[in-house]
């Protein structure tokens, strides 16, 4: 957002505002004239989709809170009240609960996109770190939201997750009691989870602004991994990215709507329609699908503290990725070995998800342990080593050359009218 602004106030009112509080200028420079690489594919649409999902979750969540009661005596009934009595309550709740699944679906595509195209590499490390912070905030928000309906799965998810903290030596039990506000998960726990579940999305929105700010400073990556070098390498954000994101969003919403209207409970668990009972644990408890790979890692280690450490490390390792990957080449398209290992890693993550859904017995335990080992080997051994042993393919001289399939000739017409500030003129 530094450098030359393309914004020209046209009316008196616009000029009056621009001198006092240039918000229209900021928005114009960030979302209209902002130059993006001309070769972005649909994998790059998920950032926009995630922003829309955040807004959607906040909207449906705020109205659900108007009908929900965070009290362990009536929480379960109040959710049924939303489903049966409140006008369109069923729709709002199904949008919110399937919305969280769609949110995670989008964030996983977004993260794997970043891993494939090297979005975490210099100079975009801070943007990546902010992204991992967002992921952690999302996980906390989703977990606490899942507790609110106060069904059996809600209660036992809250019990298992808060008990993870009791593995911490010395202070673990005190922390667990502090989280509970009692000697077991109960009414105080439900109340504070509701308070935090309402707060965290706004913290997510704040960090999203920092995340977007960071990529407006460094510019986006693109499928070639070659930074834009001339005006012909970029197009203005509007209409190009706006329209492409809109097309992707419509397709994404088709999937979302299919779940909401045709199989709204498919991703949930029937046990959560049984009211919480502190005396009976359901025979087979599993988290929501988006936590299954992490759950598999937790269960793979046959020791309480060890399992908790592995679980924590499996997320924290994402913070280290910019420094674990020793290759200077951004895009996996030009990294023949990394490209293979990337897809192996994707399959391993899906495999961990499958193991997480299975009961902890027999071959599933061994498979879970092997996949967990590979998960960490990928980050701590394969990523650092590849940078040294891999010979990258020749990369194109510019984005335009990659797009046209031949050397870029400066005599050709530049990008459409409205193409903007050259990247080298920005900070």
């Amino acid at each position, binding site marked *: 957002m530094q450098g030359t602004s393309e914004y020209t106030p046209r009316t008196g009112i616009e000029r009056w505002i621009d001198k006092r509080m240039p918000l229209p200028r900021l928005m114009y420079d960030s979302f209209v004239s902002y130059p993006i690489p001309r070769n972005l594919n649909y994998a790059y649409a998920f950032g926009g989709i995630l922003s829309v999902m955040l807004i959607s979750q906040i909207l449906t969540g705020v109205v659900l809170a108007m009908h929900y009661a965070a009290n362990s005596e009536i929480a379960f009934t109040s959710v049924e009240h939303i489903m049966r009595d409140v006008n369109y309550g069923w729709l709002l709740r199904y949008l919110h609960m399937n919305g969280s699944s769609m949110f995670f679906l989008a964030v996983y595509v977004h993260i794997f996109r970043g891993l494939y195209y090297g979005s975490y590499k210099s100079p975009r490390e801070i943007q990546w770190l902010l992204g991992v912070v967002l992921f952690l905030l999302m996980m906390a928000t989703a977990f606490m939201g899942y507790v609110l309906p106060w069904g059996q799965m809600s209660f*036992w998810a809250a*019990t*298992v997750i*808060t*008990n*993870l903290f*009791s593995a911490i030596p010395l202070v673990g039990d005190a922390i667990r*009691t*502090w*989280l*509970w*506000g*009692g*000697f*077991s998960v*109960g009414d*105080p726990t439900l109340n*504070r989870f509701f308070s935090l579940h309402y707060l965290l999305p706004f913290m997510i929105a704040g960090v999203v602004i920092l995340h977007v700010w960071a990529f407006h400073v460094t510019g986006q990556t693109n499928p070639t991994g070659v930074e834009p070098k001339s005006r012909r390498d970029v197009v203005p954000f509007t209409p190009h990215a706006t329209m492409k994101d809109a097309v992707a969003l419509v397709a994404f919403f088709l999937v979302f709507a299919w779940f909401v209207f045709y199989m709204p409970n498919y991703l949930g668990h029937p046990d959560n329609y049984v009211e919480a009972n*502190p*005396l*009976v*644990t*359901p*025979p*087979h*408890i599993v988290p929501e699908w988006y936590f299954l790979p992490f759950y598999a890692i937790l*269960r793979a*280690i*046959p*020791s*309480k*503290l060890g*399992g908790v450490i592995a679980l924590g490390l499996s997320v924290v390792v994402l913070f280290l990725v910019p420094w674990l990957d020793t290759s200077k080449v951004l895009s996996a398209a030009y990294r023949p070995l990394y490209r293979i290992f990337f897809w192996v890693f994707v399959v391993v993550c899906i495999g961990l998800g499958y193991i997480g859904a299975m*009961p*902890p*017995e027999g071959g599933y335990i061994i498979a879970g342990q092997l996949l967990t080992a590979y998960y960490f080997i990928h980050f701590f051994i394969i990523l650092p080593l590849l940078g040294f042993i891999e010979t990258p393919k020749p990369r194109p001289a510019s984005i335009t050359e990659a797009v046209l399939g031949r050397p870029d000739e400066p005599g050709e017409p530049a990008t459409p009218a409205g193409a903007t500030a050259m990247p080298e003129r920005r900070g």
Partner: protein
Amino acid sequence: MSYTYPTTVPESASDPDPSDPHYQPSRRDFFVIATGAFAAVGAVAFVWPFVDQMNPDASALALASIEVDVSAMEPGQSITVVWRGKPVFIRYRTDEEIAAAKDTQLSELKDPVARNDNLEAGAPATDENRAAAGHEAFLVMVGICTHLGCVPLGEAGDYNGWFCPCHGSVYDTAGRIRHGPAPENLLVPPLTFADDTTIKIG
């Protein structure tokens, strides 16, 4: 001490110049630092009420003990009662179960400590130290898996004791962890027999 810029505004030309290498800290420097430090300590101290409000409140701490009538129980039967919001298992064990627990060597146990609130902390996990004192057929335990807090299922698992369905921990007929991820034996809460058929827990 040397400063690159004055921490206080000199009142007159005769005030010492902090950039002077021979500058001595003045009384005013002391006040500035002391006030700042006091404010910082005060701000940190004010965090405590916001943290401590999440700890168990007075109503949660005021939980009384409970008395349970076990006169109707027959050998091989179990009941679950609620104490401090947690399930407590009371099992009237059969002779075979007691014998199986007694035959187990301490060296076979994953956690060789009794985990009995009625005994001193390091007592060995023998069957005598696990069962209710003087009533070895009765086993009273907090029914919460020491792994991640699920409620184990009774008369289940490889030792026909308890089995936790969440992550596969197996306990024997004295409630001792035998295999699986749980680190400790099931906890025996403070208990006494008020009379031959009434157990007081807490």
